[in-house]
């Protein structure tokens, strides 16, 4: 059976309201990933990620399957905390890097002590696909 295809500008639910389909296209995350940053590095689950690289302590690169249309996308990163010690962890774009259309470099800093590996690291990207 041939695949079906719907072309529409609006989706409407009987009770929950309607939605311009531009919000479906523009509002969907184009990349997300959750990976193991300690011990044996590995991606736990992801969307639009073809591979991940452990660049060293607290430094990881996710490579996209389908590239973004430009490097002006919105990104968020996160990691596990540690409630047993009085320490916080800050995640973000590697300060020595810039967003790339085909990949993203995440680093984790433990307050005042530099780069640190964490068990669970998350990345999300919203923006335009190529």
């Amino acid at each position, binding site marked *: *059976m041939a*695949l*079906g295809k*719907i*072309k*529409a*500008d*609006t*989706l*409407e*639910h*009987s*009770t929950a309201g*309607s939605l311009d389909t531009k919000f*479906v*296209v*523009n509002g*969907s*995350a*184009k990349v*997300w*990933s*959750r990976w193991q940053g300690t011990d044996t590095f590995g991606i*736990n*689950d*992801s*969307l*639009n990620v073809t591979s991940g690289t452990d660049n060293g302590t607290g430094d990881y690169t996710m490579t996209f399957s*389908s*590239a973004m*249309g430009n490097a002006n996308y919105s990104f*968020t990163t*996160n*990691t*596990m*905390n540690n*409630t047993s010690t*009085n*320490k*916080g*962890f*800050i995640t973000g774009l590697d300060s020595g890097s810039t967003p790339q259309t085909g990949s993203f470099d995440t680093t984790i800093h433990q*307050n005042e002590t530099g780069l640190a590996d964490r068990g*669970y690291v*998350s*990345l*999300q990207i919203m923006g*335009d*696909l*190529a």
Partner: protein
Amino acid sequence: MSEVKTNKLTGTSTAGSILVTGEGNSTTTNLQQGLAKVWAKCSADGTSITDSFNITSLSDDGTALQTLTIANDMANANYSSLATSIDSTCILIADSHATGTYRLVSRNNAGTLTDSITHSALLGDLA
């Protein structure tokens, strides 16, 4: 303008997989995978949910610790979490991931556990 009125979208080949053409018209993204499955804004004291999607309750676990219970569970605990605080001096992190709950931890820039208004979302697979 064309308009589709329906209460449910289901993939033809795979029920839980619908492709959407991307902005550049050359690639597609997966609709189900790209949607946030959970989001919430909660009060700093952890006693009230300001607004949310797919959240059934909030538990105050002590200073700076909030556990949110998910209405329709995630399929696994490998989801990608997003968390940020409304207070620019606080760092908010999703501390634990389970299929039916997740916990947020807020710290100030000295690393001390500190209450803050929380914003969070989850991307991953629904059960």
